[in-house]
C-alpha cells in the first residue's frame, strides 16, 4: 500500500471494511457506502487517494459510463487501471474506487456533470473528456447552460490540464474554450434543442450542416483534430485509423473516438487504444444480449437511455420494422420524477414496429405512443413484456434460427433498466 497521511491511512481501510460488510449483507457492491464512510472520516480522502495516479476523467450527459469503460480498456494496454465501473460517479464512488487501486495505476474515472469542478480541484487529473450537455431529469432544475458555466470554471486556470472536448456541442465548446490545452474531437450532437441559444451571449446559434456559429459574438465550431470517417478515425494531421467495436451505434464510435484521444493524452498510442476497445461487448449490462431458455428461446438486447438525447440515439439503433421493441419507463428519484420528457422523444420513428410499454410509468408512455401512432400493448410484468414482444416478433417475421424468435430490442430508462435486467436474470436468462 502507498504511504498515506495518517488520517487517510485509517479512513480508507475502514471504508473498505464497511464496503465488505455491506456486500455480505447483500446490499449491492457496497462501493458507495464505503466511500461515504471514508469521506465522513476524512473529507480530504479523495485528494489523498488520487495522489500518485495519472487520472483521466469523463463527464457529460450521455455516454460517460461507456466512454469510461472504453478508456479503461485502452489504458489497460499500458498497465494496471483503476475505474469506477459501477457508474458510482459522485465523490463517494470515486473514493471507493481509488481506495482499492493498485499502486501507480492509471485511472479512468466517470464524473457526474455537476461534480466535475469539485473533482478536478481534488484529484488534479491529467486529462478530462467533455462529451455533451443536454436536458436530463426535469425536476432537478439543473439548467444545461449553468452546468456549462460550471464546466468552464472547472477547466479554466489549469495550464497543465489537457481537455478533450466535443466540438459539435456548442455548450461544451464554449466551456472547453476556457482551458489552456484543448483537443477538439467531432463526436456529434444530434440533439440541438438545448443549444439553440449561444451559451456566451444568448443570440441564436446558426447550424449549417455540421458547422455552427453565433452571428453575434463569433463563437463557432472549433476545427476538430479527430473525427469519424466511414470505419475510421480521421486525424487533422492526415492519418486514418480503421477500427472495429463490439458495441453498436455511431454514438458509441464517437464515444470511442473521445476515449482514444483521451488515452493518447495519457500516453497510450491511438491505434493501440482503439484496438483494445474492440473487446468491450457490454457495459454494465448495456448492449448485452440475454437469452431466456424455453421451447422458444427468447433473446433480448438491453439498451439504456436516460433522457431525450439518449433515446433519440437508440431509436435510430433498434432493428427495422416489423421487429418488435419493448420500452420500459420509471420515474423514481434517480430517473427524475417528472416524465414530461417523453414528449421530447421522437417515438414517431418507431412507426411500423409493434411496441410493448412497461415499467411503472407505462401508462404515460402508452399515451405518448398513441399520439405518435405507434401500435402498442401495455404490460405490467417486465419479463412478460419481453415475452409478448418476442411473440409479436415471431408472428411478424419468420424465426431466424431453429425456432428461436428474433432478438427483441429493449430500451429502458435508468431504474427500469436495472429492474428489467434483474428480472430477466432472476428468471434464468443468460
Amino acid at each position, binding site marked *: 500500500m502507498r504511504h498515506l497521511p495518517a488520517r487517510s491511512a485509517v479512513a480508507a481501510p475502514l471504508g473498505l471494511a464497511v464496503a465488505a460488510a455491506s456486500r455480505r449483507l447483500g446490499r449491492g457492491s457496497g462501493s458507495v457506502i464505503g466511500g461515504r464512510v471514508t469521506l465522513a472520516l476524512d473529507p480530504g480522502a479523495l485528494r489523498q487517494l488520487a495522489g500518485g495516479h495519472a487520472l483521466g476523467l469523463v463527464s457529460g450527459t450521455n455516454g460517460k459510463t461507456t466512454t469510461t469503460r472504453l478508456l479503461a480498456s485502452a489504458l489497460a494496454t499500458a498497465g494496471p487501471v483503476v475505474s469506477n465501473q459501477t457508474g458510482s460517479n459522485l465523490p463517494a464512488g470515486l473514493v471507493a474506487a481509488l481506495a482499492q487501486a493498485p499502486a501507480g495505476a492509471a485511472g479512468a474515472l466517470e464524473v457526474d456533470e455537476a461534480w466535475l469542478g469539485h473533482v478536478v480541484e481534488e484529484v488534479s487529473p491529467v486529462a478530462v473528456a467533455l462529451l455533451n450537455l443536454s436536458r436530463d431529469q*426535469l*425536476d432537478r432544475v439543473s439548467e444545461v447552460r449553468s452546468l456549462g458555466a460550471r464546466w468552464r470554471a472547472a477547466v479554466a486556470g489549469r495550464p497543465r490540464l489537457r481537455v478533450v472536448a466535443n466540438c459539435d456541442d456548442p455548450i461544451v465548446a464554449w466551456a472547453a474554450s476556457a482551458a489552456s490545452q484543448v483537443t477538439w474531437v467531432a463526436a456529434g450532437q444530434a440533439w440541438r434543442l438545448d443549444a*439553440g*441559444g449561444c451559451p456566451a451571449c444568448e443570440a441564436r446559434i446558426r447550424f449549417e450542416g455540421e458547422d455552427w456559429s453565433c452571428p453575434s459574438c463569433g463563437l463557432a465550431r472549433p476545427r476538430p483534430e479527430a473525427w469519424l470517417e466511414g470505419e475510421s478515425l480521421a486525424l487533422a494531421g492526415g492519418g486514418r485509423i480503421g477500427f472495429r467495436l463490439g458495441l453498436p451505434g455511431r454514438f458509441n464510435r464517437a464515444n470511442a473516438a473521445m476515449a482514444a484521444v483521451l488515452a493518447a493524452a495519457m500516453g497510450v498510442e491511438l491505434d493501440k487504444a482503439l484496438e483494445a476497445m474492440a473487446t468491450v461487448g457490454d457495459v454494465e449490462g448495456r448492449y448485452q444480449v440475454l437469452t431466456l431458455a424455453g421451447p422458444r428461446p427468447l433473446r433480448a438486447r438491453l439498451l439504456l437511455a436516460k433522457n431525450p438525447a439518449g433515446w433519440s440515439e437508440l431509436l435510430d439503433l433498434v432493428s427495422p420494422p416489423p421487429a418488435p421493441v419493448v420500452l420500459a419507463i420509471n420515474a423514481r428519484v434517480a430517473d427524475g420524477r417528472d416524465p*414530461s*420528457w417523453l414528449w421530447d422523444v421522437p417515438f414517431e420513428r418507431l412507426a411500423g414496429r409493434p411496441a410493448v410499454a412497461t415499467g411503472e410509468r407505462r401508462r404515460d408512455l*402508452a399515451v405518448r405512443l*398513441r399520439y405518435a401512432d405507434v401500435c402498442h400493448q401495455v404490460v405490467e410484468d417486465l419479463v412478460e413484456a419481453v415475452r409478448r414482444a418476442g411473440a409479436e416478433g415471431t408472428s411478424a417475421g419468420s424465426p431466424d434460427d431453429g425456432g428461436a424468435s428474433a432478438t427483441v430490442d429493449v430500451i429502458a430508462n435508468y431504474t427500469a433498466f436495472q429492474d428489467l435486467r434483474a428480472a430477466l436474470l432472476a428468471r434464468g436468462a443468460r
Partner: protein
Amino acid sequence: MRVVDVFPDLLGTYGDGGNAVVLAQRLRWRGMGAEVVRAPSGSPVPASADIYCLGGGEDGPQAQAAAALAEDGSLARAVAGGAVVLAVCAGFQIVGATFAGADGRPRAGVGLIDVASRRGTGRRAVGEILVEAPEMGGLLTGYENHGGVTELGPGVAPLGRVLAGVGNGTGGATEGAVAGRVVATYLHGPVLARNPALADHLLEMVVGPLPALADPDVEELRSERLAALGRGWRRRQRTASGGAGEGRRHGGRGVPLAPRRGDHLEAR
C-alpha cells in the same frame, strides 16, 4: 386548423411541444385536417393560425422569448383577431403584464392578459398537481415546477381551484388564468396529454362542438395519476382536519378522486 408551437427552442424545456401534437392529432382522429407549425425564435411568428402554444423555459430564454414576441407583434395581433392561446408555465408568465427576470427584477410580458408574476418567497413548487376546473371538463391532473407566483387582475378568472399542489401560489388556491381566448396554466409540459377534455375545449373554441373520442390509454393514465395523488392527498386532508376521512366530507373538499363521468370520454 393551424397550431403554432411558439419558440420551441426557448419555450420547450418540459416536453411542451407535446401540446401542439395532441391538439392536431385529436382533430385528425376525427377526420379533420390539422397542421403543426414549429416556429423557432429568430424568425417571424406565423401571423395566421388558429391556436398558439407557449411552453416552459429557463429564466434567460423566457426573457428572450418575451422580448421577441413583443417586438414581433404577430401573437398580439392574432389574439386580437380571435386566435386561441395555450400558455404554460413560463409561457403563462410571458402572456401577462410582468414577470421576474433572472435577476429577480420585473420584466415586461406581452400583456395579452391582466396577470402579474413575481418570484415566490417560499420553496419552488415541484410535484404533481390536481385542479378542479368544471368549465374545462372536470379534474385537471399535471405536474408543476415553478418558483414564480401569479396574481390575477380583476377581469381574469382562474382556470380552476387547486385540490393538491400549489398553482398560482398567491393564496385562495387558484390555478391558471382564463381571459377571452387565452388559457394559461402552471400544469407544465404536455398538460393536454393528461387532460384531453382541456384539449378538446381549446379545439371547440375554434371549430365548435366535436364528437367524443374513445381514449382507453389516457383513461388508464388519468385513473392511475388520480389514484397516486389521491393517496397522498387524502392523507394530508386527514392530518389537516384531525380525523380519519374527515377531509373528504368537508363541503367542496369531497371531490371524487376516481374518474367520473366527464373524466371519461365516451366511446364513439
